[in-house]
């Protein structure tokens, strides 16, 4: 059983995180830690607040209350681009690639923070522009090569097959040189074989880029296989935290997924309106 290293300071530390949309409390008093190099899962039934949580961590929403400390500083209230610069990169549940741009350009957008030329250099096409563009280009190709996507570099993102789109999204996030990678349902819409490949892929990039990963996923086989620790959300509340084996046998988790009252109630709900929220 692996426990979080208590002596080390966490890379990401979330305390009492709450967000309200009008009367709806989407996430309530969330406490979550991610340590260096860890692979942490965040699971829960649909509508539990997982993506909302990601949106707060990446600055898309600002929380109603609570603290988020990332790499030693508070990131509450920072804009998404600043959080990205601080070293947290994400992918999206519904793929959000820059469709009318090539794969290479997609990656190069993420590299913009490391361009080494100013506007005048670009407008006047000074020699420095060409040499620095070359550097950016080779860096982007390098990232694509690392993920086995170099053959796709000149393809328009919209023309990629689904699995590759997911990979390019991860590659684009990696290009920002993150310390923490937030993956929002990377296995959504994948078949079991593709999911198995993805789990190898995630573990591989985690080593190659020495990342911490926070993963939202519905595919339990994937989560249980690769995550070291798992947090479970239900109706915005943290209901369980622990290793995969602890989570598997946790009564509240089973209730959240199957409904309280176990099988009896499940069959009832199925008969009425398919109202189980799992």
């Amino acid at each position, binding site marked *: 059983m692996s426990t979080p290293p208590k002596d080390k300071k966490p890379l990401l530390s979330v305390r009492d995180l709450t967000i309200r949309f009008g009367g709806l409390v989407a996430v309530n008093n969330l406490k979550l830690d991610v340590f260096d190099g860890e692979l942490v899962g965040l699971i829960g039934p649909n509508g539990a607040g997982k993506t909302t949580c990601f949106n707060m961590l*990446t*600055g*898309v929403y600002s929380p109603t209350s609570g603290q988020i400390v990332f790499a030693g500083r508070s990131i509450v209230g920072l*804009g*998404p*681009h600043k959080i*990205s*610069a601080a070293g947290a*990169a*994400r992918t*999206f549940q519904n793929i*959000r*690639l*820059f*469709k*009318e*741009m090539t794969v290479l*350009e997609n990656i*190069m*957008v*993420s*590299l*913009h*923070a490391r*361009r080494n*030329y100013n*506007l005048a250099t*670009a*407008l*006047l*096409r000074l020699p420095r*522009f060409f040499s620095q*563009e070359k550097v*950016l280009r080779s860096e982007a190709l390098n990232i694509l090569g690392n993920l086995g996507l170099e053959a796709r570099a000149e393809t*328009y993102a919209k023309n990629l097959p689904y699995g590759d789109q997911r990979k390019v999204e991860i590659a*684009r*996030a990696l*290009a*920002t040189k993150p310390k923490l990678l937030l993956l929002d349902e990377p296995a959504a819409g994948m078949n079991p074989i593709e999911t198995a490949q993805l789990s190898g892929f995630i573990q591989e990039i985690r080593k190659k880029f020495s990342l911490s990963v926070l993963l939202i996923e519905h595919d339990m086989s994937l989560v249980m296989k690769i995550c070291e620790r798992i947090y479970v959300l239900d109706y915005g509340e943290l209901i369980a935290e622990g290793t995969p084996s602890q989570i598997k046998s946790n009564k509240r988790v089973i209730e959240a997924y199957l409904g309280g009252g176990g099988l009896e109630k499940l069959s009832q709900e199925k008969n009425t309106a398919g109202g189980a929220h799992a």
Partner: protein
Amino acid sequence: MIEYFGQIFVLFGINVILASSLNVINGYCGLFSLGHAGFFAVGAYSSAAFTTLIAPEWTAQSPHLALLVSSLIAMGTAGIAGLAVGIPCLRLTGDYLAIATVGFGEIIRIVFLNMDVVGASRGMPGIPRLTTIPWVIVGAAFTLIILNNLIKSSFGRCIKSIREDEIAAQAMGVNVRFYKTFSFVVGSLFAGLAGSLFAHNQEFLHPSNFVFMISVSVLLMIVLGGLGSQKGAVLGAFIVTLLPELLRLNEFVSQIRMLVFGLIMILVMLVFPEGLLGLLKKGSLKNKFFKKAKNEPGFSGAPL
């Protein structure tokens, strides 16, 4: 007759500048702006004010230098106007942004309509005719080169990423508010340049030169040519400038030429919804006809 063609050419050049500058805002950054005539007006009036009111003697002595200086002033003032309008407006998106920019475009026009130093509703006469065909060529080429260099740089990629997906762009570290304002200001800047060339071609300015319909016709040019393509903007400017003149050739059509022009525009948009350059992208019959052009590097209907 030569003067007539010269005048059409000058207007074509000015329209190229207007269209390609709006293309940065609308085609590349995806901001639906309908206030371009306002920045065009700011450029026109400020440059004309310089050459006729502030330094008329100097302008008479060295007209070329005066046009250059007044064009730079026009770009500066239009850029500042773009910044002043952009900062509040760019908090809005989509249709709301379009409405707000329409409003600001009209506000600018009405300010000039009531500004007595530049003639208010009497108009502003006596502007020296400084715009020559070489100057228009220089201005349009300068605009196209600078904007092309901008778009094909890291800055341009950031601008395009906003058009593609604002949320993803932010998450990849693109400062969306900055780049939106930046592209809005760049667009206004070059609209100002167009204004300066226009003022010193027309010799007389009136607020009715800068009505909402001007913004619409500039938008028409870039949509007609194909949004997000500099070649499309040039092609669109060419058609929108030339087609109404060509329709003068037939005496009957001449009387209803704007009606025919409108009909042609509707037909073109129905047949080529992606703009005229969009047809090169698809495997249409016309593709064969354009094959030679298509093989040139970079010449495709795909947004650059």
